[in-house]
């Protein structure tokens, strides 16, 4: 009986062998040497990305990753960094500060990492900054808007640069919040606001800036509540806020909570607009419950209106990514290009990368100035972007429509 088993096993093995021969693949495009004429003899350098690639905010995070990847691919094709091939290594931070810190640790222990594009959430950035700064690794964020990240706790009266390695290409909440307040009071004519935040660095910070300006302009905050970032049932907080009869709810937080909040407010009879920041500015907000008349501010001018962005939009579409570039795609593209451009300057025509080059790279990033998809890209002495454009959007006909673009002057 056992002999039969052995014999049949041998027959099966033989049959498999024959079958395998039949499915011989024609040779696919060979190995890693796809980029035709570039000299990549010195090896591969890594551009890191830390963003939420999974979880509720993945729509934004994947847009960041894809745009960075686009920039890296274009740089490889144009042989921007002489002697090296660039590769993208994206680490998922799940919008969680702890995971973000671990992702940063992982990237920072690799000597081939030249810089990191990230993060999305300000709270994650607070945990990532010290890790990367320890190793003098450049960090350029496409989406952090909290001002304390560059200027410290006393950012209004006594700003102090926190980390020399940290830069960002987007505007900050100390202009975004007041910009929103100004629009609300002067253009929309609403003065009684209920503020709801999710308790995170970004939401609380933005709401605080908004509140200051609102009260200066004569508005009043009739109620202020907090919810958890993962909450889905807001009936309790809505019932708490309704008696104070607000005209608008200003939400400091992101779209996974803001969308359902908006819908549940309407269901509960509190049919007033929700006004938020760049955290709710995504198509998913409308999908998850955002209603007509809801408002949001976001950094930069609308991507589609900028000439400089057209090339980016076309190139992104051509690559066929399964996700949209969403709110921060153009910023991520610009950030990556800034990093790559500074790297090219640092290494020159024949330089070799080593950890000693990191300080030089930092300097060159600080001095970087070029035109990008979001406008002119340059950094000030705190690492903030010199581009302080903001836009107010409104949900009209099921989509976000730009209502006003401008900057906030004190």
């Amino acid at each position, binding site marked *: 009986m056992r002999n039969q088993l052995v014999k049949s096993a041998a027959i099966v093995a033989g049959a498999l062998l024959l079958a395998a021969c039949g499915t011989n693949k024609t040779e696919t495009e060979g190995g890693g040497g796809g980029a035709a004429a570039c000299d990549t003899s010195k090896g591969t350098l890594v551009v890191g990305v830390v963003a939420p690639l*999974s*979880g*509720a*905010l*993945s*729509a934004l995070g994947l847009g960041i990753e894809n745009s960075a990847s686009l920039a890296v691919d274009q740089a490889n094709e144009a042989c921007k960094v002489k002697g090296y091939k660039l590769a993208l290594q994206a680490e998922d931070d799940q919008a969680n500060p702890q995971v973000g810190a671990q992702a940063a640790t992982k990237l920072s222990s690799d000597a081939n990492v030249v810089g990191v594009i990230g993060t999305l959430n300000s709270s994650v950035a607070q945990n990532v900054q010290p890790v990367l700064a320890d190793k003098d690794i450049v960090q350029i964020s496409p989406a952090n808007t909290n001002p304390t990240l560059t200027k410290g706790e006393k950012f209004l009266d006594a700003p102090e640069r926190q980390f020399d390695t940290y830069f960002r290409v987007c505007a900050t909440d100390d202009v975004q919040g007041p910009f929103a307040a100004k629009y609300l009071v002067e253009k929309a004519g609403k003065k009684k606001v209920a503020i709801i935040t999710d*308790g995170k660095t970004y939401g609380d910070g933005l709401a605080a800036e908004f509140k200051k300006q609102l009260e200066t302009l004569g508005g009043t905050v009739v109620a202020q*509540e*907090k*919810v*958890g970032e*993962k909450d*889905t*049932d807001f*009936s*309790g*907080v809505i*019932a*708490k806020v*309704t*008696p104070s009869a607000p005209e608008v709810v200003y939400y400091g937080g992101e779209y*996974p909570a803001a*969308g*359902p909040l908006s*819908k*549940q407010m309407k*269901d*509960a*009879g509190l049919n007033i607009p929700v006004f938020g920041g760049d955290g709710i500015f995504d198509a*998913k907000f409308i*999908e*998850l*419950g955002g209603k007509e008349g809801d408002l949001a501010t976001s950094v930069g001018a609308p991507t589609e209106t900028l000439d400089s962005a057209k090339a980016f939009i076309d190139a992104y579409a051509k690559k066929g990514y399964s996700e949209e570039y969403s709110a921060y795609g153009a910023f991520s593209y610009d950030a990556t290009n800034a990093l790559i451009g500074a790297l090219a300057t640092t290494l020159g025509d024949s330089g070799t990368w080593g950890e000693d080059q990191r300080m030089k790279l930092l300097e060159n990033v600080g001095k970087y100035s070029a035109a990008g998809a979001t406008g002119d890209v340059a950094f000030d002495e705190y690492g903030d972007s010199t581009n302080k454009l903001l836009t107010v959007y409104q949900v009209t006909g099921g989509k976000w429509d730009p209502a006003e673009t401008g900057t906030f002057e004190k």
Partner: protein
Amino acid sequence: MTTLFQQIANGIVLGAVIGLIALGYTMVYGIIQLINFAHGEVFMVGAYGGLATYTYILPEQFRDDWQIALPAVLVGGIVISVITAVIMERFAYRPLRGGPRLAPLITALGVSVALQEAVRLFYPGATATLAFPPLFVDGDLRIPVPGGGGDVVITWIKLLLVIVAVLLAVGLQMYVSRSRMGRAMRATAQDADTAKLMGVNPDRVIVLTFILGAALAGVGGVMYGAYQNTINIDMGFQNGIFAFTAAVLGGIGSLRGAVIGAFCIGLIKTLGGQYLPGGNQYDYVWIFVVLILVLVFRPEGLFGEPEKVRA
């Protein structure tokens, strides 16, 4: 005054959902003394099953027609959750029956994690929150409250949820107390060996228990998604704990207790969030405090009989 009544209404709605899940917990524990940690995930799977039915199976033209969409989605959700529960019972719990109590408990934990992850990985887009269709008429019921402060607003879907939950609970109670199979279930819960001697097939009774519990959880999942308009993979765990608390509060093994316990829990959450210190951020904490107090001081709950809890 309006706020009080509004929060009471909210609490009752939440209690209805919790009750549908709690019934499953209490039935399974009554029969095989197992805390089925994975039952919350069955609730979640039911919601995703319903969403899948809506998105992939229901033809476009019927989507807005709630008379067709709602029953279809409910059926879809029930089918998926029942299948999940049956597979769970057959492959994870049945082999461990009769053994020491630690093993099925840990297995239940493992199944719960595996189910969550399976949905997250294999349902398209499930890593983020997904939108769930409303499935019912828009609009709400407004009850004016004397004394000013506005009306109490209850959307129709929430009202439907409460009615459906109560009807199902009553139906289940009648089934268990009147039908032959129900009698078999009660017999097995009381004394499995004697029931076996009397000709009851314990395997079939247990599978039926799981099926009934899962069906209720599936309905709960779909309706929860419908009134919240979003679902995510975390919804099972939290609501599962609340449901277990409700079952314990009402007296584990008692159907009536599970429902009453569930409404109590719903009210504790909403009223506690409104009036107790810490606000709505700590509403969950009050529920856990209740759980601990009940388990320590009156483990038999409101309607159960005091029994020696087996170690």
